[in-house]
């Protein structure tokens, strides 16, 4: 699933590069689960643009950056109009002598060490163009376990046990564990008790003082037979206690039991809230709007995420908005509701607006409003006119697909994440659907609700095949069958909130 997330052009000076770096940081924080990967991307950007500003002679006056998700990779593209690079200097290895001078490091070695692939080309306007890429981590969806254990052989052994099922992060004492937790979202902590520097009990106490970390499930494991230790550990509000030695299957059983129990508690709390609020926001549209037939499919995880589907029609025009609020916990749902209220108000107070104008209003609110700026969203606005005419504007949303019986092709409509800058402009794309064609637009869960890259490819392939194979049956049934295929391949319940909208122009028209 390809999409643009950020596009920004700025003057080549130190103040502007700091602002640009913060933009990239904002984007990576909201789109990349793995914090250290986001930090690497931000660091690479900082090194490149600082290098351009400081060393380019003749100097660059302008730098453009683009950050996107493409073919299973995160891509950062940096272009500048300064002196063309000396490519021979770019082979420097990461070496201590690199930093011999005052602030003199050109950072090339650091960039090479921090990205998976680095390409340099001179673009068609004779500008430097650096393209950096990082693979989208297959483990992003796996349960992340932090293993805290001071004995290196034991760490290796437990990692062996755990790594087939979980993403395993490691620390050899409590202090280092806190550092990992500062940089990485963790789903469960598995900690030894007796360790140097900071023991497991102190680690547990520290975590319970931190509002961000106090609810992370916590398991102690220890070989100590000290009287009272278990009671002291239990008094710290832990989820389980394992006596060492422990076998692999036994360890996994303990972890799964704790995760299941925690999941059930969160689910019960969320359900209570959801029943009251969510029902009024279940993404849906009427089966017909003006000259269009429409069908919607939706799956909901019950926790986190939040898809919004809104519409407004007047005379011969109508507007449909699809929003995906991004987030890792149930609070993102709250923001989805807040946006729902705002967008409904914007749509009703206007006549049917240009699609890009509505996105620009949403983006301006996302930028300036204290509450709404706390969450990242992607969105798409479609203006539905007669005779299969559509105008579409997108803000970092996956490309819609035009489907025929034989193939599906993406509509390359792009725009950056809303709310990153005060005055983002979105470029609309005009699409005309011919008889026998449908358009599908969706939130990213449709193709991304899978455990790894291979499963994602399979899911995307199966769903687009189902879209083509259902072209000859009524659109509402087609949407149902496609979502059935989604359940079959992605599993139930879905890993992410997912909304699919199918539309076709009225054939009688």
């Amino acid at each position, binding site marked *: 699933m390809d999409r643009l997330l950020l596009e920004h052009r700025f003057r080549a000076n130190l103040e502007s590069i700091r602002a640009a770096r913060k933009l990239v940081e904002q984007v990576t924080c909201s789109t990349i689960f793995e914090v250290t990967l986001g930090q690497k991307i931000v660091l690479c950007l900082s090194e490149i643009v600082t290098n351009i500003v400081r060393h380019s002679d003749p100097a660059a006056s302008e730098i453009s950056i683009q950050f996107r998700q493409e073919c299973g990779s995160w891509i950062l593209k940096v272009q500048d109009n300064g002196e063309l690079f000396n490519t021979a200097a770019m082979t420097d290895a990461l070496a201590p002598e690199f930093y011999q001078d005052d602030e003199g490091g050109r950072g090339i070695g650091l960039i090479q060490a921090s990205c998976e692939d680095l390409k340099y080309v001179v673009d068609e306007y004779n500008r430097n163009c650096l393209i950096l890429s990082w693979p989208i981590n297959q483990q992003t969806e796996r349960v992340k376990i932090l293993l805290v254990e001071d004995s290196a052989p034991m760490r290796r052994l437990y990692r062996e046990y755990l790594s087939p099922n979980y993403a395993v992060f490691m620390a050899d004492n409590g*202090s280092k564990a806190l550092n990992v937790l500062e940089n990485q979202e963790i789903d469960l902590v598995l900690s030894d008790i007796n360790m140097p520097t900071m023991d497991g009990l102190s680690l547990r106490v520290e975590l319970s003082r931190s509002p961000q970390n106090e609810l992370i499930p916590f398991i102690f494991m220890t070989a100590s037979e000290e009287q009272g230790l278990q009671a002291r550990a239990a008094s710290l509000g832990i989820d389980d206690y394992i006596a060492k030695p422990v076998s692999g299957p036994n360890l996994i059983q303990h972890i799964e039991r704790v995760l299941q129990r925690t999941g059930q508690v969160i689910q019960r709390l969320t359900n209570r809230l959801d029943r009251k609020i969510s029902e009024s926001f279940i993404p849906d549209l009427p089966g017909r709007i003006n000259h269009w037939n429409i069908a919607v499919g939706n799956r909901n995880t019950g926790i986190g995420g939040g898809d919004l589907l809104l519409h407004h029609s007047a005379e011969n025009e109508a507007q449909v908005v699809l929003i995906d609020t991004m987030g890792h916990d149930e609070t993102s749902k709250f923001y989805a509701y807040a946006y729902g209220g705002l967008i409904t108000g914007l749509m009703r107070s206007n006549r049917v607006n240009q699609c890009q104008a509505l996105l620009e209003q949403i983006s301006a609110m996302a930028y300036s409003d204290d509450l709404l700026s706390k969450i990242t969203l992607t969105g798409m606005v479609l203006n539905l006119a007669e005779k299969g005419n559509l105008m579409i504007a997108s803000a970092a949303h996956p490309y819609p697909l035009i489907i025929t019986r034989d193939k599906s092709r993406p509509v390359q409509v792009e725009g950056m994440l809303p709310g990153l800058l005060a005055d983002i402009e979105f470029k609309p794309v005009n699409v005309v659907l011919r008889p026998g064609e449908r358009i599908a637009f969706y939130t990213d869960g449709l193709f991304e609700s899978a455990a790894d890259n291979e499963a994602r490819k399979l899911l995307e392939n199966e769903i687009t095949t189902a879209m083509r194979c259902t072209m000859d049956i009524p659109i509402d049934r087609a949407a149902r069958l496609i979502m059935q295929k989604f359940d079959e391949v992605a599993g139930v319940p879905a890993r992410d909130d997912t909304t699919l909208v199918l539309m076709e122009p009225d054939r009688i028209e």
Partner: protein
Amino acid sequence: MKFQQKIADCGDLIIELNGEFDALGCSEIRQVFKEVATQLSPMVVFLDLSAVSFLDSSGVGSMVFLFKCLREAGRSLVISGVHGQPRELLELLRIHKAIPIKLMEQ
């Protein structure tokens, strides 16, 4: 980048930095580092990075510059309080092989 200088009870100088230690941050702190480097005392200078949220090679270069000046004068530099991304970067560059790093006490 903001900074504050303090003298510890033992006489060591503590420079607390606050902000982003990038090229712009370096330009804001350069004069302070030069002044500290040319003084004759104290013998030990602590660079407290507890409130530094971002570090890149410009910041590292600037610290290495200070470290070298102090070393030539028989003085020493200790980095303290570093955490998060700055700590990751210092570890990647193995800076602790040259400059002692004192991690935050919990």
